Structures are given as structure tokens and as C-alpha cells.
């Protein structure tokens, strides 16, 4: 077992445990903090796959901006353990069983697929994830989607302000 595999298993275990803790935490603030841990673990996976640009963008956009927005909203509403609405135990169990069944079916499908058993993801090297290559592709072939996404951001900003203002 070399260093890459050790890091892979550590990050996978961290991501799964933190994702479970997002669900199991009663306090919404703790859920947000566990979700930030998941995002850090996924960024670690990106670095392991040498997708450096996405690793940094994931940290800045998700862990930095989006999660701070969630924390602001939760603290603004003063949500805590006491005000947390709970479903009854039967509905929780039904949800867990149906999600588990979906996971089992999908994993059995992946196990049966013969084409992918020999495929591997290239770790640590390869420069397609570096910002030079991605920037060239983004501004040559994907200029129009890039500009459209800026219009999307503008409309989202206007929409958030219109929805959020007191009428």
C-alpha cells in the first residue's frame, strides 16, 4: 500500500463519515461544519487526481462562499437543537431503507459492468487539470457558455434581491 492509496482511503473515510454526520447532527450549525469537512475531503481528492484548479475553486466557492452563506442564514434564524423539526421514526427508517436499497442496486450494477473493471483513473500526474490547459479550453471552445453563466449570475443576483426585500 503506497502513500497515494493511504491518502485515498483516508479521504474517502473522512468524506463518508462527515457526510453521515451531516445527517445525524441535530444542530444545523454542526451540520454545516461537517459539510465543510466533506468539501475539504473532496478537494483533497481533486488534488490527488491533480485537478488543482478545481480543488482551489471548490475550496473558495463551496467551503468559502456557499457555506458561509448557509451559516449566516442559520445564525440569522437562530436555529438550534430545540427548534429542529423531527420526522417520526417510521418515516426516518423508510427513508434510510429506500436510500440503502438504491445504493445496493447501483453498487451491484457497478460490480457487474465488465468494461470498467480494467480502467483506472490517472493519479498525481497529467496536466489537464492545470489552470493553463483549462483556461485555454474555457476561452476557446466554451466562451459562449462562460458568458451565458455570467448572465445567469446577474439574473440570480437580481432574483435574490427581489425575493429577499421586504414588500
Amino acid at each position, binding site marked *: 500500500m503506497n502513500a497515494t492509496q493511504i491518502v485515498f482511503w483516508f479521504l474517502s473515510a473522512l468524506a463518508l463519515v462527515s457526510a453521515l454526520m451531516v445527517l445525524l447532527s441535530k444542530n444545523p450549525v454542526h451540520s454545516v461544519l461537517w459539510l465543510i469537512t466533506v468539501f475539504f475531503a473532496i478537494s483533497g481528492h481533486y488534488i490527488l487526481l491533480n485537478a488543482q484548479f478545481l480543488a482551489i475553486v471548490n475550496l473558495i466557492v463551496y467551503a468559502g462562499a456557499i457555506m458561509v452563506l448557509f451559516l449566516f442564514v442559520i445564525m440569522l434564524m437562530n436555529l438550534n437543537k430545540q427548534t429542529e423539526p423531527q420526522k417520526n421514526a417510521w418515516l426516518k427508517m423508510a427513508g434510510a431503507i429506500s436510500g440503502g436499497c438504491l445504493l445496493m442496486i447501483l453498487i451491484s450494477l457497478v460490480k457487474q459492468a465488465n468494461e470498467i473493471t480494467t480502467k*483506472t483513473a490517472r*493519479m498525481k500526474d497529467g496536466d489537464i487539470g492545470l489552470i493553463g490547459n483549462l483556461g485555454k479550453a474555457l476561452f476557446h471552445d466554451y466562451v459562449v457558455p462562460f458568458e451565458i453563466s455570467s448572465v445567469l449570475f446577474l439574473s440570480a443576483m437580481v432574483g435574490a434581491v427581489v*425575493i429577499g426585500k421586504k414588500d
Partner: protein
Amino acid sequence: MPIQYYIILSLALFCIGIVGVLTRRNAIIIFMCIELMLNAVNLLLVAFSKMHYAAAAVANKAATEGTEGQLFVFFIMVVAAAEVSVGLAIIVMMYRNIHSVDVSFLNRLKN
């Protein structure tokens, strides 16, 4: 690493997100579980892009196969950021009207 490990990891994260949407009633937690599912898909896209790169890099050292997968992840992040800003605005408005973030109070569209 074999691509199967990445597929199974992403599936597990995705199903944890689905269970969260099904079992929680707090609208913000449901929203966070949707973010979790988006991230599972992102991880899978990056793993597949490196898989295609690994297949192409055997023949050609300077191969750029798989760039599209990583650009898709970038665009998913863009859309997720826009979605979160609008969604949280809607949740704040809902909290202002019914003083709760419990989604079971929203089972009717009128009143």
C-alpha cells in the same frame, strides 16, 4: 486507482444525500444534502475525466482528453452558486412568513 472505487465512493455520497432529503424536515438541511449530491457528481466527473486522460496519455504524452469533464465541473459549481443564492433567499422569505423552516408546513401552495 481503479475507477470503480471512485464510482462507489460517489454513489455512497449521493445516496447519503438522498437519505438526507428523505429523512430531514429542516429546509436548510435538505438544501445542504442537495449540495452534497452535486459534489458527489462533481467528484465522479473529475474521476472519469482522468480515466479518459489515462487511456489517451499512453499513446500521446500531451493529450488533452478529459478537459471537458473538468470544465463541466466548473459550470456545475457556477450553477450551484447561483442556485444557493436564490434558494436561501426563498428560505429566508419562507421563514419570515411562517416563522419556521419546517417543509411540512409547505405542503399546500395556497395560504
